[in-house]
């Protein structure tokens, strides 16, 4: 592996590279969904896979989300490793019953006789001027469900490594891809196979004043905010959670013990969101280190607005800076 070559890829190209790598390695891996075949996916995440692996392994299905995930449950139980794609996370609701009632519970219900190793991929989140129902960020639904793992990468390197881990995971994984940053930048991605462990956060920037917890599409703008704040003498530690379920609580607590102050950033609505879970972890495990209330910078508790207003909904660099400042300056 030491001689491994790297490529400079966008995040969505890393998705494609991850799928390609696993499909080459394991012939039980099968991709299915709407437009994933000849068209290569509406975001080109499956581009070229149909030509290489054929229509039996890269399957254009009828337009039916419950059908896609429900048949994948049966496939997984029989011994394949299906990777169903839902075109946008906002279209996952017709499949919700299959995800939570069956995929998540099959191992428990059958006492291990049947398992459901599948990866449900979907682009999630806003900021790309998409139509209604195309911009939702509902990771908390899935994180709330026992039996599911929920992964949200923020770099091309992590995307490929986490996707490979997800495909090899013996349990169902909801893999949400931040489409706002699908093509926003490139990063070095090793050729061939490597994994990034599910359930481990990554410190993106070390700092001593405030811990900022973030994941997915909000990560680059949080890093930008952290850089800007150095001018004001605020030194942020930015922790990219990478997996929202299971949460890397040790990483959260370790960072918080260092700084005593926290700001959580996500684009999902605030109430019942992951920020509440992160805040509770800090309360439970690091109360005596706490020097300020935990600040949440999130989407609002409103239906995701049509795109004329989405900039007002999504946490911006300025809003993130303001939230971090609030945590830093509390006395």
């Amino acid at each position, binding site marked *: 592996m030491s001689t491994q070559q790297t490529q400079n890829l966008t995040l969505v190209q890393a998705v494609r590279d991850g799928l390609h790598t696993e499909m080459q390695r394991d012939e039980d891996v099968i991709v299915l969904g709407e437009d994933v075949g000849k068209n290569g996916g509406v975001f080109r995440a499956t581009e070229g896979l149909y030509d290489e692996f054929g229509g039996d392994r890269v399957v254009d299905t009828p337009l039916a989300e419950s059908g896609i995930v429900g048949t994948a449950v049966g496939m997984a139980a029989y*011994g394949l490793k299906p990777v169903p794609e839902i075109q946008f996370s906002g279209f996952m609701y017709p499949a919700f019953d299959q995800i939570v009632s069956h995929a998540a519970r099959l*191992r428990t219900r*059958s006492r*291990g006789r049947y398992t459901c190793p599948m990866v449900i991929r979907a682009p999630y989140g806003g900021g790309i001027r998409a139509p209604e129902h195309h911009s939702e960020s509902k990771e908390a639904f899935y994180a709330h469900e026992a039996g599911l793992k929920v992964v949200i990468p923020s770099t091309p390197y992590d995307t490929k490594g986490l996707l490979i881990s997800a495909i090899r995971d013996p349990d169902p994984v909801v893999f949400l891809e931040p489409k706002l940053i699908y093509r926003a930048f490139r990063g070095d991605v090793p050729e061939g196979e490597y994994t990034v462990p599910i359930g481990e956060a990554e410190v993106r920037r070390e700092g001593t004043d405030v811990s900022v917890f973030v994941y997915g599409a909000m990560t680059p703008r949080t890093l930008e905010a952290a850089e800007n704040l150095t001018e004001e003498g605020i030194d942020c530690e930015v922790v990219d959670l990478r997996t929202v379920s299971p949460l890397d609580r040790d990483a959260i607590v370790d960072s918080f013990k260092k700084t005593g102050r926290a700001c959580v950033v996500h684009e999902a609505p605030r109430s019942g969101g992951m920020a509440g879970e992160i805040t509770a972890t800090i309360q439970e495990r690091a109360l005596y280190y706490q020097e300020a209330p935990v600040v949440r910078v999130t989407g609002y508790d409103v239906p995701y607005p049509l795109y004329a207003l989405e900039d007002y909904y999504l946490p911006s660099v300025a809003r993130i800076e303001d939230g971090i400042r609030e945590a830093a300056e509390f006395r």
Partner: protein
Amino acid sequence: MSVLQRDPRDRVQVLDEDGSVVGEVPDVDDETLLSIYREMKLARHFDTRAVSLQRQGRMGTYPPLSGQEGAQVASAHALDEEDWLFPSYREHGALHVRGFPLDRILLYWMGTEQGNEAPPDVNTFPVAVPIATQTLHAVGAAWASKLKAGEEAFIVYFGDGGTSEGDTHEAMNFAGVFDTPTVFFCNNNQWAISVPRERQTRSETIAQKANAYGFQGVQVDGMDPLAVYQVTRAAVEKAKADDSGELRPTLIEAVQYRFGAHTTADDPTVYRDSDEVEKWKRKDPIPRLETFLRDTGRLDDDRVDEIESEVQETVADAIQTAESTPRPDPDEMFEHVFAERTPDLDAQYESFAALREEFGDDAFLHR
């Protein structure tokens, strides 16, 4: 001509209500015929006892099957050893034919998850309580089998109410598009709890819905075990023959009646006339097959008595086994959630175990 190639309104029947032969008797050996009879008797007795256990507070809510023995038992008998079965929550008879132990069925309704675990050599899925979701699992598994060059058929059971659910249509659509070896078996028992079949669909038959998906649909007298065996066997054989010139899936509508309540929590007298129930009871599949077996010299009083006492003993044993099975260890809640416990789950388990250790199980039991 295959029994499947007919107008969906042309209901297949072999025995009339009196057990007289009115159609073509399928090619079934005596052993199978007697086994169908025995398993129907067993299912009926099991059902009676299960309802009674619930009434005595020895079991939770239970969905009775009486009236549906012919459809369940004969269709399951039409499968080959390697085939897969995807039940709804009422398929106790079909599951048992496939080798799923009666005591586990009881355990499930007694609230113990281990009752859902199929023995390793039994290809049956856990029961599905949400309506019709299992239709997609059957299509997915059938599709996977086809991709892996397997040679099994996959039968999935659902009710007339289940045909109103989107999943049933997505499942039949996928099955047609991908030509999967799936047998859709609709137990049309006339009522989805209190809502009649006429309020589920305005189609004249359920069988004709198959036309919309490009494969064959056939209506059968679901209380005629010989007719059910005949159509199901034809559907299973077609599912496995990719050169038949027909699409592999089949939709079977088995017209029948649930004699009792939807579940023990339901009171059907609120929505059904007793005349209606009496009318359908005259079609009872058990005496019909018994008459046929007696008329053809396959069964006599002695054998009937023998079967009766065998059945009673088997069910009594199953109840005894289920009731003497220790309640599950509470630790089991934390097993089988994932292949390996996550750190969060581990922490919750440790705290659970510590509480049990310190205060005993009384700390959890609210009385």
